[in-house]
């Protein structure tokens, strides 16, 4: 099975995966720093500002027209968060040149544009261009606000903010709307240069490359020198160890209720496990979560939805790097207590080893199917590898799948018993609302 080949130079890492499976070539840049309260909002703005304009393509419009001309190449950016790391991402995909007339060289052109966006943005004086900062100030405010408008996402964001209050893991990926008034073109540009000086930089190249090792060396040289030049003083300052899971804490779970004029209530439960991604018991945690709520055959779907008819969705997932298990469901608010009792009962059953042979084998097969399918999606292959890099243990896809298949009932029970209920969050309708 295909695996990445990696070359390093200090904090710069290039991972290549040559394959002729796709009609597109992909390059993903992931620039990582620890997330922190003072820098959260400026850092979150950076990847969006990068696509507002470069020295050669001085506006968002010029960049978009350039990529359109490259046969609809896609150049996108965004901000991500994995546990306590803040990750600025830029993503490029370009149609395979051989299949389109007149498309020779489009990948090279795309690469050049992408590197320029990150390292040579349009500057006025000592800052980003004023107009670009103004546009992004407004757009970013709306990015933050739109989380509120999506009640499923909002309820999970609120649950996590409560569960992780005071921890860097609890900071919102996009930062805070109230910080936006204070950002300036000069301040953001300084933040940009600091970021480039401190970030760990990972590049993923996936596609039909003629000479992948030459490409890797070329990318490594081009990106490391351009990023060092664009940093504060050309020196590297990166120092961060592997990501650790959120530590478990004792005591009673936190209970939080919000009210909004909504039709459907959202009941979310956050569990801490303290199990790190790199641990040998991590695959057992994946299986335990799968049995609990990862699939339609799982306990939550079967009991909350199919038996009690209370919800359309009822599921759980593992946040791999923070070691959290997150349960979410949408219910009629009048059924809140019943739904919570059923959910808690499913976790208890799992912890006491009430796991059938079918549940165990279906879940293992389902997880393996998900990992194998991800091999068909370039961005997913890169993400899974990258999670391993951050956690300090890269498992080859085969290794991870073998480990899942080797999980036994007692491993599942042991992992399930690491689940500690941390926070119960409920979003309900308002008083006077018929559905409150």
């Amino acid at each position, binding site marked *: 099975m295909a695996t990445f080949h990696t070359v390093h130079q200090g904090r710069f890492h290039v991972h290549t995966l040559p394959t002729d499976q*796709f009609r597109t070539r992909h390059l993903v840049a992931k620039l990582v720093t620890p997330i922190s309260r003072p820098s959260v909002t400026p850092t979150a703005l950076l990847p969006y500002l990068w696509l507002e304009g470069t020295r050669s393509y001085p506006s968002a419009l010029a960049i978009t027209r350039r990529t359109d001309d490259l046969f609809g190449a896609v150049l996108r950016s965004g901000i991500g968060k994995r546990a306590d790391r803040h990750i600025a991402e830029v993503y490029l995909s370009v149609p395979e040149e051989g299949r389109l007339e007149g498309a020779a060289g489009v990948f090279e052109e795309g690469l050049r544009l992408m590197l320029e966006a990150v390292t040579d943005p349009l500057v006025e004086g000592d800052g980003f261009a004023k107009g670009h900062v103004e546009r992004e100030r407004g757009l970013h405010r709306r990015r933050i606000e*739109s989380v509120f408008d999506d009640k499923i996402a909002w309820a999970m964001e609120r649950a996590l903010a409560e569960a992780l209050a005071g921890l860097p893991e609890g900071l919102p990926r996009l930062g805070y709307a109230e910080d936006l008034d204070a950002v300036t073109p000069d301040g953001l540009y300084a933040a940009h240069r600091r970021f480039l000086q401190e970030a760990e930089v990972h590049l993923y190249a996936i596609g039909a490359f003629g000479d992948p090792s030459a490409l890797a060396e070329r990318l490594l040289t081009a990106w490391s020198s351009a990023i060092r030049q664009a940093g504060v003083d050309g020196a590297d300052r990166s120092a961060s160890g592997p990501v650790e899971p959120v530590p478990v804490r004792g005591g009673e779970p936190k209970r939080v209720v919000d009210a909004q004029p909504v039709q459907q209530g959202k009941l979310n439960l956050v569990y801490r496990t303290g199990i790190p991604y790199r641990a040998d018991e991590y695959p057992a945690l994946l299986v335990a979560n799968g049995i609990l709520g990862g699939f*339609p055959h799982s306990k939550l779907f079967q009991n909350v939805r199919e038996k009690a008819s209370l919800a359309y969705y009822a599921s759980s997932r593992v946040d791999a790097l923070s070691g959290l298990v997150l349960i979410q469901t949408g219910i009629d608010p009048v059924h809140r207590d019943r739904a919570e009792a059923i959910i808690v009962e499913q976790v208890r059953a799992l912890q006491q080893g009430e796991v059938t042979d079918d549940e165990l084998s279906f879940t293992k097969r389902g997880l393996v199917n998900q990992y194998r399918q991800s091999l*068909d999606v370039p961005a997913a292959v890169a993400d899974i590898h990258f999670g391993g890099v951050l956690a300090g243990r890269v498992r080859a896809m085969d290794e991870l799948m073998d480990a899942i298949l080797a999980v036994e009932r007692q491993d599942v029970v042991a992992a399930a018993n690491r689940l500690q209920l941390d926070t119960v969050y409920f979003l309900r309708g308002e008083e006077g609302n018929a559905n409150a």
Partner: protein
Amino acid sequence: MREHKDPRLGHVLYQETLDNGLNVYLLPKPGFQQTFATFTTHYGSVDSTFRTGGDEDFITVPDGIAHFLEHKMFESEHGDVFRDFARHGASANAYTTFDITSYLFSSTQDVYENLEILLDFVQDPYFTDENVAKEKGIIAQEIRMYDDNPDTRVFYGLLKALYHVHPVRMDIAGTVESIQRIDKETLYRCYRTFYHPSNMVLFAVGGFDPESAMDVIRTNQARKSFSEMPRIERDRPKEPPSVNHPRAEARLAVHQPRCLIGWKDPDPMPAGPQILERELVTGVVLDVLFGRSSDLFDELIGEGLIDQQFSWEYERTPEYGYSVVGGNTPDPDALAERIERHLERARNEGLDAEAFERCRRKSIGRFMAALDSPSYIARHFASYLFRGADLFQTVEILERLTLADADRRLREHLLPERRAVSVVLPKQA
């Protein structure tokens, strides 16, 4: 089994129509781990009034029943169908649109077993009073979830504004009230009418051997007996060409208003390749006018009237067609006004030739890239087939598209008298 080689797209598509009328298409994709298969009936939420050959009268069924039926297919006499797929490592799902219902799985192992499970469960309805009653609670929560979703609400609001009587104006899942009227007898009647193999398509794409897959499907179908092919007659109220209401409004617990502007095609259009041609030319027109590389997009972002969610789409079936443009905006009426002024100029001056060429090439590149996604292909292939069109003609149609075609389309379609606006505003606290 017939073979259609497409050297341009670099694939071979296999096709066979079985004795029972089922149309099977197989698209092997060497190198891919997964196989993605869909079993699709030409039956969606708009098929609410119908009769078959033997019936005297048309029957009108409750709104949301096609979607309800889709849910109920996953329960069989021996239990839950998800477990059958889970046993073979497959992930299964289904969805209902205005005009189709599609059942699907994706798996990286046991592909032939999973193909049989797919065929068997969709061809074995099992409805009881109890399991129908139980589903009402689940679907009611699905509807409530969408009730709180501003993007869904503003979209359905637009269709209600555009259409007077055509059932495309009704939510696909129906309403919490309409689904209460669904019972097992009506479900069986819908099933018998629309789930005959001759009204269905099986499509599979991914890493499998086409000969073996076709054998499995052939043998499976030959084992079963079906009634004669029903002659389905769908009855539609006559939809006037005009829009129903120029403006629709709803209030929700959101920070940002939403605004969608829609234009209605007044003409029915027979099923055939022209449906895809119409979609592609309209898509390029909309991309030139409203896409991310348009002057307007850039200006509206600069003025703070839109954000990056601003987008367009065009949908065309033989019965109806509409364009939609819009997204989040602080001032829906100002946005609608700006767009109308922009269109007025475009209708007078025509589209910019350079922008047209850029968008046409982009569409070709994006389609080629989408072919890397088995799920994209699987989700679109059957849908176009029922509309008489071949998804894989996309590139050749785009290649012969001209600026004159695009200008003509702009001037006949994006007209103020065919337009409605739908807005969602923040609910006052």
